[in-house]
């Protein structure tokens, strides 16, 4: 029996040969195999993947060496006369039984890994993940901390106006933070349609389904930043809701958690302050990033699918109704309620921005206090 390291190495060599690349460096740069795992389950999966790939490659090579030998040796042009045998019970029994035994051999380690994956008991930390079109919400249930995480790649990079950054499409405004070497349990659900939460290096992926709760766990061994994406088609911006996880040492994690609790207090201070129109417009332009997916950078929307903000009745009509739509969304449409995702300041700023930019010019200023009064 091969040791697991030898199997891994052998499988790498095989996949290397398969595309004519033999240098490890080249393989790494081109990303031909699973990303390097950082969790026990991730290691198990990589090992399983390499083992099964290796078995498949060996069978493949054996079977097709017969075929290619035949293609070479049994050609009519070489004067080979056709034999006329039509079956061989012995051979047929052999190639039914042997593959079956190989499959049993594959099933054993697979079952063991699967049982490990499904054991979510005795977790040190629970994080609830909620999928939205098109962002993620993270809540630390035992600590009263929660926030939303959205794509932070600037629109200009996506549209090719600005050069693309190193982590193009795989960067968010607020990453999920978890402690290393602790069993972290994730609870998954969704707010609108089905999404799937996936970090390749953790070896976990599961659907977030509206109305239902799913769970999975990981234990990250090395501190670092890990990136993944939504893995279930969830509509227009399915490709633009990345997942970023920062794994910190338990001490750093505790410090981070404490700072988060303080940060939520700061929001209250911000909400009480009176802001100038310019401050609101500047902040509102940033917050408007939440609206761009549907309403567009120019506020013109997508005809037939998403309404325009520019010149719309909502953005030029009564202020209270406009604030209401942003906070509570619009039932039966893709317009969602932002009241839980955005602070009072954010909502005030984005409403002010929408009423004084994008071709609108109402002159209205909305203060955070106006928003908090209707919460």
């Amino acid at each position: 029996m091969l040791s697991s390291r030898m199997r891994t190495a052998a499988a790498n060599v095989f996949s290397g040969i398969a595309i004519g690349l033999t240098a490890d460096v080249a393989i790494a740069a081109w990303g031909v195999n699973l990303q390097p795992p950082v969790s026990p389950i991730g290691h198990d999966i990589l090992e399983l993947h390499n083992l099964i790939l290796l078995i498949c490659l060996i069978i493949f090579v054996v079977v097709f060496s017969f075929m290619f030998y035949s293609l070479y040796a049994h050609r009519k042009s070489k004067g080979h006369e056709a034999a006329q045998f039509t079956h061989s019970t012995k051979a047929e029994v052999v190639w039914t039984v042997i593959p079956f035994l190989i499959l049993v051999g594959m099933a054993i380690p697979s079952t063991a890994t699967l049982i490990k994956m499904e054991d979510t008991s005795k977790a040190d930390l629970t994080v609830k993940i909620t999928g939205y079109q098109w962002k993620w919400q993270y809540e630390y249930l035992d600590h009263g901390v929660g926030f939303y995480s959205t794509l932070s790649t600037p629109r200009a990079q996506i549209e090719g106006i600005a050069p693309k950054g190193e982590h193009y499409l795989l960067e968010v405004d607020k990453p999920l933070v978890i402690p290393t070497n602790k069993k972290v349990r994730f609870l998954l659900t969704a707010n609108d349609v089905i999404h799937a939460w996936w970090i390749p290096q953790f070896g976990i992926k599961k659907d977030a389904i509206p109305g239902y709760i799913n769970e999975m766990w990981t234990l990250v061994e090395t501190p670092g930043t890990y990136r993944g994406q939504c893995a279930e088609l969830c509509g227009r911006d399915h490709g633009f809701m990345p997942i970023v996880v920062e794994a910190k040492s338990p001490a750093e994690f505790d410090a981070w958690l404490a700072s988060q609790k303080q940060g939520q207090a700061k929001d209250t201070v911000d909400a009480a302050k009176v802001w100038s129109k310019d401050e609101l417009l500047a902040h509102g332009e940033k917050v408007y990033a939440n609206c761009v997916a549907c309403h567009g950078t120019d506020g013109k929307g997508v005809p037939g699918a998403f309404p325009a903000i520019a010149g719309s009745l909502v953005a030029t009509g009564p202020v209270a109704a406009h604030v209401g739509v942003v906070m509570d969304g619009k039932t039966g449409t893709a317009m969602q309620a932002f009241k839980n995702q955005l602070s009072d300041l954010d909502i005030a700023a984005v409403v002010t921005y929408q009423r004084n930019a994008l071709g609108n010019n109402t002159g209205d200023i909305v203060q955070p206090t106006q928003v908090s009064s209707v919460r």
Partner: protein
Amino acid sequence: MTPAGQQPAANRRLILRLVMLVFAMFGFGFALVPLYDVFCDITGLNGKTGVTDSRTVEGTPIDNERRITVEFTGNAANGLPWEFRPTVAKMEVRPGALARTTYIARNISNQTVVGRAIPSVTPGEAAAHFKKTECFCFTEQYLDAGETKEMTVQFVVEPDIPRGVNTITLSYAFFNAEKYVERQTVKMKHQDTKFEKTHADKKSQHRG
């Protein structure tokens, strides 16, 4: 292979059988809906929870050896202008003992809204052993503009819950049910709903 003279009759027989098969399979597609429900109830697939009544619970022995942590979470889905959260994040229960907790919902819109809570329990193998005797999810909930309501759920974790399970999460997703309460044709397929009536009856008997 059919002799030429008998062919039309043979064709008709075969076509009839095949057409019946087509209709049977069309029906089977729909029959998968209740079958799936039964399957889910048995296996706890999708975290569907069961229902029981308090009399049965009083009859079950309490397992004083084990402690199960039950976590509570909830969210108001897109289209429901409510705030919704559990009053406590988690509690420890003994298998077989009745436990109760509450959730708080507040209607933040300026009109009456009807919502319906859909429960879900994870892990799946726990769901079949997690039974509710009383729950705000049994009926639609009406909240007037600005109204806040504390809503009760009473449940039991059955003693035969698998050994490996020590944490259970009960999650509620509250949906806007306006579309579904006005129509009588609605197919309410959650077991909790089916139970609603019989549950109420049993409860009154119990009290009487």
